[in-house]
């Protein structure tokens, strides 16, 4: 066992040297505004990944071994140290107040996760990823021209779904620079990536709720309760889970920008971008870096990011009149949401053109019809009660039409679903109302344990929160929890989304049920209700604006 303890120290040096230091120094050098140190830490991790990619590209172009990228990164850090005074000033100016919330849980996580380690059992697919990284390292190529399982050239295989090499490249770099075995790297990565996940989730929750206690509770609950793949800390070294760190950080950036958007400006997507690049260029560029990293590491989180804002927009249209933040968000999001929904619908029909049937037509029109209902309702609020009633009836009819009750029942009473020969890894086919084949996910595949009962309860809780305190935080949480659950029980919505991402990513729509944050919000609220403390003593999400 001491192998791991001995090698952990060696691993830590290279982890810090490659995945923290270059980005942290960059963040401290180029950002002159006062930011929290936790922000610099996660931004540093993201920027380090980018710098690793750049260094790897350079050495591959010059046909050098990947290990030389380490020297490039060290040289880069040395150059940055020339601007040491700027780094020092930024370090002194950083806000350290949030550290007290996360330091103890993070230390505990390092200890616990170093003992648990990254999952290396056969079922976990770790070996598949390690093999991919091994072949990248052995062939000194970023994009393999052969398949790492068979050695056959990709052009000869024909149909081949290539896995994005963004994270495998980093694994290969870590292996080549440190000389450690992939198993050691994989085991130790969990111990150091988990605290970064914790901090990133803390920042996301903080940006959403504007409250440190809720943020801390959310991050703690993410660590302690069951959820989707993001709660599986032992698979932190998976590309998907690394991507979640960046995904949370992207949410943090998005919500920070939304809260800071000046009220006096006209709310619109173009004006938001203009304001962002003029007043908050560092955050905007960082958001673009995050998008690039997600695209090169796992990609589907970018889809979930877009989908979550579409869901938020759709629900916000029903209640926007009650809240200033929601009205503002509708103004900013209308253009991107309408464009994305149209593009997705056109893409769906384009890709399914040869197989089209009435059920697929219904599936293809799902998002656009939800958007139309929302917009009708939004304009109806101004007109009068009759239109509001019509809008509500349309929404209820839409939801009722979409629910597959046998799928809903199967969540509570497991039945032997129609398994394909590949077991739980594949969807099971269901019939649409016109008798054509649609698909739904199998609860057995990592869904049931996360949804029962924590996530399911959180949907009810989110409803309560939104009714009692209708604000941006609660509506975002409610929209994502309700609609992502609806996707899991609706063959039409699921088939529609499955068109844009492989099935193994589509069923992960349940990640949008942010139940740790929902529970944190309700615990916080209930504490104050129970102790009968006056409202003005509360540190509610709204009052801290």
């Amino acid at each position, binding site marked *: *066992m001491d*192998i*791991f303890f001995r090698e952990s120290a060696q691993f830590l040096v290279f982890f810090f040297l490659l995945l923290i230091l270059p980005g942290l120094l960059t963040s401290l050098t180029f950002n002159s505004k006062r930011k929290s140190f936790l922000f610099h830490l996660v931004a540093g991790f993201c920027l380090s990944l980018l710098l690793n990619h750049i260094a790897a590209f350079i050495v591959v172009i010059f046909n050098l071994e990947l290990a030389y990228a380490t020297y490039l990164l060290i040289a880069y850090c040395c150059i940055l140290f020339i601007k040491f005074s700027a780094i020092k000033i930024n370090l002194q100016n950083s806000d350290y107040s949030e550290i007290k919330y996360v330091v103890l849980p993070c230390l505990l996580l390092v200890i*616990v996760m170093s*003992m*648990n*380690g*990254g*999952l*290396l*059992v056969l*079922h*976990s697919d770790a*070996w*598949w990823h390690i*093999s991919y990284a*091994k072949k990248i390292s052995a062939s000194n190529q970023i994009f393999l021209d052969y*398949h*790492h*399982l*068979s*050695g*056959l050239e990709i052009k000869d*295989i024909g*149909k*081949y*779904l290539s*896995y994005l090499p963004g994270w495998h490249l980093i694994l290969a770099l870590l292996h080549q620079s440190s000389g450690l*075995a*992939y*198993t*050691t790297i994989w*085991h130790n990565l969990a111990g150091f990536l*988990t605290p970064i996940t914790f901090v990133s989730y803390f920042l996301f929750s903080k940006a959403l709720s504007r409250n440190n206690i809720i943020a801390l509770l959310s991050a703690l609950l993410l*660590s*302690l*309760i*069951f959820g989707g793949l993001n*709660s*599986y800390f*032992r698979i932190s070294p998976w590309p998907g889970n690394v991507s979640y760190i960046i995904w949370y950080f992207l949410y943090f950036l998005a919500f920070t920008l939304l809260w800071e958007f000046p009220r006096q400006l006209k709310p619109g997507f173009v004006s938001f971008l203009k304001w962002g690049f003029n007043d908050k260029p560092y955050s905007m560029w960082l958001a673009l870096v995050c998008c690039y990293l997600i695209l090169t590491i796992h990609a589907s989180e970018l889809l979930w990011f877009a989908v979550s804002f579409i869901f938020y927009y759709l629900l916000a249209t029903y209640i926007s009149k009650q809240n200033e933040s929601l009205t503002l968000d509708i103004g900013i999001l209308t253009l991107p949401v309408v464009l994305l929904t149209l593009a997705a619908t056109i893409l769906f029909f384009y890709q399914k053109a040869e197989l089209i049937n009435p059920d697929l037509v219904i599936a293809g029109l799902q998002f656009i019809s939800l958007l139309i209902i929302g917009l009708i309702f939004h304009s109806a609020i101004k007109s009068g009660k009759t239109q509001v009633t019509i809008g509500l009836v349309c929404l209820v009819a839409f939801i009722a039409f979409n629910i597959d009750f046998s799928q809903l029942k199967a969540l509570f009473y497991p039945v032997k679903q129609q398994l394909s020969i*590949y*077991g739980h*890894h594949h969807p099971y086919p269901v019939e649409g109302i016109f008798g054509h084949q649609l698909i739904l996910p199998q609860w057995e595949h*990592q869904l*049931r*344990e996360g949804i*029962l*009962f*924590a996530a399911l*309860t959180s949907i009810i*809780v989110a409803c309560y929160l939104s009714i009692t305190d209708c604000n941006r935080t609660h509506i975002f949480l409610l929209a994502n929890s309700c609609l992502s659950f609806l996707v899991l029980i609706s063959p039409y919505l699921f088939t529609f989304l499955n068109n844009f991402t*492989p099935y193994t990513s589509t069923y992960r729509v349940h990640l949008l049920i942010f139940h740790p944050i929902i*529970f944190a919000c*309700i615990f916080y609220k*209930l*504490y104050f*209700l*129970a*102790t009968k403390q006056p409202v003005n003593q509360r540190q509610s999400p709204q009052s801290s604006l």
Partner: protein
Amino acid sequence: MRPHLFIAALVITIFYALITKLDDLGNISITYEVKTENRNLTQLHWRIAGTQTVKHLNKSIQAFPAANTVTFTIDAATDKITIVPVTNQDAFSLSNIKIYRPGLFIDIPLLSTQPLELSSTTEVQNVEQISSDRFPFKSQTINPIFTFNIDARFVYIKYVTINFLTLLLLLYWGRLVYSRLLNSKSTPTAHTLTPDIFIFILVPCLYLFSKLSIEFNNPLASLQVISWFTLIVYLGYLCVVALKKSKINVFPVIILALLIFILLPDVSYKLSFIDHKPNSNKYTPIYHWRLSNSMDQTLTQSGHLYKEDMKEIERLVNPSDSFISDEATSYYALSFLPLYPTTAKPHHGGSGKDYSSPFVSYEFLKYLCGPDELYNDTDIVEFIGKKSALHKQRNWPDLKYVLLNKDTQNRFVRWQCLTANNPNTVRKVQAIGKLIYQGEYIDLYEIDINK
């Protein structure tokens, strides 16, 4: 003590007796301890009361020094039992015979368990007493028997009385706690009567609950659940009333407690208080962290230990060839060696699928692990020859090596048949190749069908 407490206790006890069918409790348990010289079989026969129906059950028992504590669950309505401690001619000892009858509201072993003395037997046959401390008896022929009569006539009355008294005591204690919490006088006002009225509401709930439990075919568990459910709800109600008097707002506390209760199994699993993952397939890997997990898992349940062997093998093999091995070792080797496997997990391999490897084939398993009668050495040599030719013809990596894993600790290897732990497979692999490296965990064979 007020009369309504008596009435409440009586009503609940009667309901409890009716819904759990206390007079015909379904099953009772007979437990006894047997020691015997040789491995043997023990039997219990019982007669259903008022009939001539005799049933029996068997259990195997281990030889001395093992002390075999045997438990049989039999019909409650039994009036006679016959114990056959051993079924062969053997020396044996028989002791600690006990009858356990469920049905008490709170299970008190002293009251629910009845010991049976050997001196109270009504009939003993084929048994010889010998002067040995270890084995006091010897069976003269096969099947020595000890017969006991069981008298269950007063059990029903006894249990109802005990249940009534227990419940009365609990209610009185609860009432006392409640009064103390409120500092109220003992005058029964409408307000102070509320918890007792609440008990009456519980009765139909209990009935419904027990019906549901019986639906799930577990009446015994339902007895326990009903007992604890009643107590928890009643005491919970008292707490709520007490909280109402304090500065705490009760409703949020209840919701908070409920939410924590929902999340508790998840947290308990991660903190290793419970071992079973709630609501999940037991075959899924241990994705979640747990306090009780240790580094040993990574060390022993992965390919980490094989890295020295793999380093040596890497020196010996031609890069870009393919190899035959079990599924686990194939993945481990893939991560250490420049070779390609002929086995993969179903969702990773198989022609035409995503991430495909067209030469993945489960036929290797069939030939190298199958019975000799179906796949003899000649068949295997012929099959490997055909496969090698196909690899050459299709320009796939040459089929050149076999890796056999000897690890006995790694359960993912232990499950496989194509390993060095299977002597039959080793013999078959030796027929198609020669051993070129023998490591601590992995053996490497080079395929040579012309040898």
